[in-house]
């Protein structure tokens, strides 16, 4: 049975708890909620629940470690195991250190776009994609909330080249085959004045991490 998720706006602003009395909890960024539920449903892992923190925490990486710790503490009595579905996410190693101190596992890699692409593949690209700006399915849908408005481009469009002038290409790392998202991602590239490329990744290293956690 597919579990219901709130809309993307709620995942961005508030997060969500999607629970079926499981024994293990995945504590995740709201930006990964749909992908995590898809992998859980695909594999029939009824013992795994999902708690999402607001995806907008990504705009304030210095707040992620404390928010993760608070959620781990809040849910530790109710679950046998808790897994953290965040990568480093701009915390400069602090989230990893916090997870180690809490005794919980997290996803390796710098960002979600790296583990969707595959961390090793992403690392191997090295400087070749230095001037790439990445979007995932979630970020395409929430482009205005995560890019356009926080960067002030809704109010000050003249800042675009100051903010994005060093980028060359917007690469949409697609988790699903969705022509509508492809169109939206292309439109985002146009708005930023960047060339456009779509790369299908599926769930990448997220799925393999979850498989390890589920076993």
């Amino acid at each position, binding site marked *: 049975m597919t579990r219901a998720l709130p809309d993307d706006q709620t995942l961005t602003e508030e997060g969500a708890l999607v629970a079926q009395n499981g024994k293990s909890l995945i504590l995740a960024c709201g930006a990964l909620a749909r992908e995590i539920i898809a992998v859980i449903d695909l594999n029939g892992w009824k013992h795994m629940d999902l708690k999402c923190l607001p995806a907008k925490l990504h705009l304030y990486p210095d707040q992620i470690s404390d928010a993760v710790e608070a959620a781990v503490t809040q849910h530790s009595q109710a679950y046998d195991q808790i897994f953290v579905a965040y990568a480093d996410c*701009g*915390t*400069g190693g602090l989230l990893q250190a916090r997870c180690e101190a809490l005794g919980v596992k997290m996803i390796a890699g*710098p960002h979600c776009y790296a583990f969707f692409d595959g961390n090793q593949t992403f690392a191997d690209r090295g400087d070749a994609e230095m001037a790439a700006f990445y979007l995932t399915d979630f970020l395409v849908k929430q482009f205005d909330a995560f890019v356009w408005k*926080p960067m*002030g481009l809704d109010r000050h469009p003249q800042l675009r080249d100051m903010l994005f002038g*060093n980028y060359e290409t917007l690469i949409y790392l697609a988790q699903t085959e969705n022509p509508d998202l492809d169109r939206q991602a292309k439109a985002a590239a146009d708005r930023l004045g960047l060339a456009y490329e779509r790369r299908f990744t599926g769930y990448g290293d997220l799925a393999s991490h979850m498989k390890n956690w589920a076993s």
Partner: protein
Amino acid sequence: MSDEEDDIILSELDDDELVQQMFDDLYDGMKEEIEEAVHILLDRGWMPYDILTKALVEGMRIVGIDFRDGILFVPEVLLAANAMKGGMGILKPLLAETGAPRLGKMVIGTVKGDIHDIGKNLVSMMMEGAGFEVVDLGINNPVENYIDALEKEDADILGMSALLTTTMPYMKVVIDTLVEKGMREDYIVLVGGAPLNEEFGKAIGANAYCRDAAVAVETAKDFMARKHNQMASA
């Protein structure tokens, strides 16, 4: 800050009022008004250095405080910086002519593999405003760029910036190379960027991690004062 900007005629304000208005205009990112005000103060006989420090730098200091406190965000700071840049553009050639004090020389750049330069550019501008000479190497700098520039420019300070978790370790490559070449003690090394923190700065052997541009300026001043004190007592 004010809803009555359109009603204000800058040339009719006295000096104190005009400087206060410049603080407001910087805060609101009003480049043309800042440029006009700089010209007015120059016409009234103000020294370029005084305009820079008492109006522009002080105004940006206020912007920096509100950025630190979460009242202003990156877009507003960029607009303020752009307004200050307009004023600096007028003052810079005049500062050279009038012999404004120089606090030291900084080589700054974003590290190899990283194209992000907003923070670095803010630091460059604030350092210049504070009286430092700045040699900006731009983005994506391999270690050779830093070493060559430090030697060529006879700099006092090395500033390195990175926005990515994947690129920030390159700062250690640069510092280790300075150590290998026996140059590390010749320079004050300041590092900054969103994913960095104080522990990282210490771990890679930098002199200091600077949270924002205002902190970078104060830290640079502090280290330069220590350097001069050491030289005086040697």
